[in-house]
């Protein structure tokens, strides 16, 4: 017994909890519009930058924002990738089905880029500069994944 390798024990625990978060007014307004398939950004009165997601202050100018401007659900791909090693979705403990496409999309009317999924049905079309459009779920509940992904326009 003394000559054999000591046995090391691991303790397995599943973290399985949920929390309730208050969105705050800007995000509340934003997501209510998303539920209607409308996207709007908050515009900084000083630098003019149009932000998605919305937040109460412009981080650069440190001033409050309350001017909403319309944003299209079409835009241009600024960066893209196809992920082969899936991330585990922390909300479920399950890996995302892979491979899946992701992109940074400059929506028409916004100055920040949106990090979202990209339809990879035709990989040849995936390039920086490609024009894309949101593909919406049939029923929206007011969340960022009311958009399933963005498809490349021919």
């Amino acid at each position, binding site marked *: 017994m003394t000559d054999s390798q*000591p046995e*090391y024990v*691991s303790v397995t*625990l599943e*973290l399985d909890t949920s*929390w309730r*978060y208050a*969105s705050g007014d800007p*995000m509340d307004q934003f*997501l209510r519009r998303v539920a209607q398939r409308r996207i709007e950004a908050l515009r900084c009165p000083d630098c003019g930058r149009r*932000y*998605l*997601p919305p*937040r109460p202050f412009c*981080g*650069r100018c440190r001033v409050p924002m309350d001017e909403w401007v319309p944003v299209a659900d079409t835009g241009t791909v*600024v*960066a*893209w*990738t*196809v*992920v*082969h*090693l899936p*991330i*585990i*979705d*922390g*909300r479920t403990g399950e890996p995302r089905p892979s491979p899946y496409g*992701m*992109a*940074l999309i400059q929506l028409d009317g916004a100055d*920040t*880029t*949106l*990090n*979202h*999924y990209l339809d990879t049905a035709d990989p040849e079309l995936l390039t*920086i500069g490609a024009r894309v459009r949101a593909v919406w779920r049939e029923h929206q509940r007011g*969340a*960022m*994944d009311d958009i399933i992904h963005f498809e490349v326009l021919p």
Partner: protein
Amino acid sequence: MNPVAVVGTGQTNHAKARPDVSQPELIREAVDAALIDAELTSADIDAVVISNMELFEGRALPELWVAEGAYGAGKPVFKVATGGTSGTSSCIAGFHQAGSGSFDTVLVVGFEKHSEGHTQTGMALVDPFWDRAVASGALGNFALSISQYMAERGVTEEHAAQVAVKARRNAASNPHAHLKMPDLTVDDVLNSRMLAEPLHLLDMCPQSDGAAAIVVASGNNARKRGSKAAWVHAAATRHDQPYLGDLDRRLITTRALSSAAASAYAQAGIADPLRDFDVAEIYEPASYAELAWYEALGFCNDGEAGRLIGTGVTSMDGELPVNPSGGVLSTNPVGASGVIRVAEASAQLLDRAGDRQVAGAKTALSTGYGVYAWSDVIVLRSEMP
């Protein structure tokens, strides 16, 4: 801030998994090594700073569980949790504590046990309204940023692979490194499994279990040690806006890193980084990142990083060896990775870097990088400020 210096460093031998030690036992290994290196005992430590993130290993208050491993019971113990910069920010916190005059000797220890947690997922569990449904995690974030970087600055997969080769070959001379690949080639990197286009497996850092510690001494204490002190000449930290899409071209502009570097270089009187630094330990989570850091840190002009890696200037026998330790690309216990940058840079100045020693190193750079929005820059010299 009063002058302070790093007077001892210690690391575990980093590995894919350490099932033989609990998290407190893991940090005890690094802490004991650092105390021996500093020629001190635990009784000499006035305060402890711990670098680690809650959600990566899914337990609340990691410092409560592990502090005994750092001889912390009964002493002031603070945790710093800022993603990849946790380690460098913890060191800076230690510098400030010792430099304040309130603490004479401060122990900083960072650790991670990736084998016990989920880092990628932990990184995506940020804003519950926006990020959790669509966040990419580390791999996706880098891949996105890199696609822009390649398009705009002309770096190629081959340039990145050269960085990956340099790192793993350097690591072969580092007994602490996780991935040691003395015979790695560019073709090996390009043929390795695609993780997220264009990142191949060997373009990315590993996930490691490990810990690293440094001992920071205030001026009087450090002065008595003569050449056995690595003096802090500058420390700068920058945090940026929260969402990946807030800042176009993050990897390219690297606003947080260039701003921190400008501040640190001004503090330390660095005018020409390539010439003024003898060695650099920079935080490069992906091969492409090192190229972007060459530009942000002023080693070359924008668009020239691909050319620079090819010249050999940043190799072990070049003018400015970058990451003799093998860098984050070879060893990545996230909470420890930033401490390792400072420990390795200090060991170089203390002439204790063994087979990876850069002869006569007197001025060292170490940097930290966290998520996509945080950067630290630290300048160390063997002479007092």
